């Protein structure tokens, strides 16, 4: 392992985040820490994950899209951000591509994603 990979692995270990297995097409709920003045609270943001970038590494990120008051909203979260309290998978979608950008041009019925009926959790990495 080169030095950069080593440093990144160490940082991921020290951050100690539990990141569930999810991919594009899944509906996820993200608890994002919001600071208002002096106190912080956790804000929920739920929507469809439409892309994951840069894998599980320290630079990894994912995009969550939701329809808020009739307007499409997309937010990009760094996977290992210290501002993320938790990530929950609400629903697993059956999709055939890695990036769900086509959802941007769809509304309502055509923007639905079928649910996976036979989800199998991946084996834990040795």
């Amino acid at each position: 392992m080169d030095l950069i990979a080593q440093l990144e692995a160490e940082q991921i270990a020290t951050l100690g985040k539990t990141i569930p297995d999810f991919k594009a097409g899944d509906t996820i709920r993200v608890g994002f820490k919001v600071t208002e003045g002096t106190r912080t609270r956790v804000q929920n943001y739920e929507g469809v994950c439409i892309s994951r970038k840069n894998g599980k590494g320290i630079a990894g990120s994912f995009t969550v899209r939701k329809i808020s008051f009739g307007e499409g909203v997309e937010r990009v979260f760094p996977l290992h951000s210290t501002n993320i309290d938790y990530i929950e998978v609400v629903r697993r979608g059956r999709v055939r591509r890695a990036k769900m950008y086509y959802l941007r041009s769809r509304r309502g019925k055509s923007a639905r994603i079928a649910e996976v009926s036979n989800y199998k959790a991946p084996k834990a990495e040795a």
Partner: protein
Amino acid sequence: MRSGVIAKKIGMTRLFLEDGKQIPVTVLQLDNLQVVAQRTDETNGYNAVQLGCGAAKAKRTSQAMRGHFSKAGVEPKRKVVEFRVAPENLIEVGEEIIADHYFEGQFVDVSGITIGKGFAGGMKRHNFGGLRATHGVSISHRSHGSTGQCQNPGKVFKGKKMAGHMGSVRVTTQNLQVVKTDSDRGVIMIKGAVPGPKGSWVTVKDAVKKPFPENAILPAALMSAKKEAQRAAEEAAVAAAAEAEAEAKRLAEEQAAAEAAALAEAEASTEAEKKEGEE
């Protein structure tokens, strides 16, 4: 003025801070950085230390350089650089400089050879705007346009920005902040980008445009000093352990003595009671 260091640019990554911020950092590594020679006022007319970094194969090192390294008593080095220092900050030949030379939050200047871009046009090289996409412009959309006036002056002025070779020049980026150091691995993390490709040599110096930090280590953070400190700490730990053991022993003895005394007292009192009962 103290010595700088030679470092290898390893690459870039990011650090997540507790408050949710993430900062981009460049990872630099000190690879066996040793003092190879000294330049002094008496012999050379100026004061400097010559540092060597990396490891070179002896058979690929020239005879002259092999002699130079053997005189210093160090392994052949890949890269050799001189740093001007104040006479009181000269470092002994053979000493190894470690990453603790810089502390977290310190500002430094980093120099390196930038990535070569080859022959580049005006738009890339000097941020020219180029010509329009339509309105009669043909073929020359990325050209530089006019280079001067007419018959008077009748020449192109010297220094006119034009297309040409770009990159592969020595560049210094000033006032970069040190984010983290790790002397065990020789790693220095610097906020932001540093000139040069991965694997290239860069030199790091204290920032010239900031006041000299008071807690900087003079003349340099040395491996010998670190080892000395480690040894002292180990000795202190051993002494402390011995002291603690002695203390524990003393306490145990005291307790035993107290117990014996209490026992004797109890016996005495029971005997006294017995006597009373007899009487």
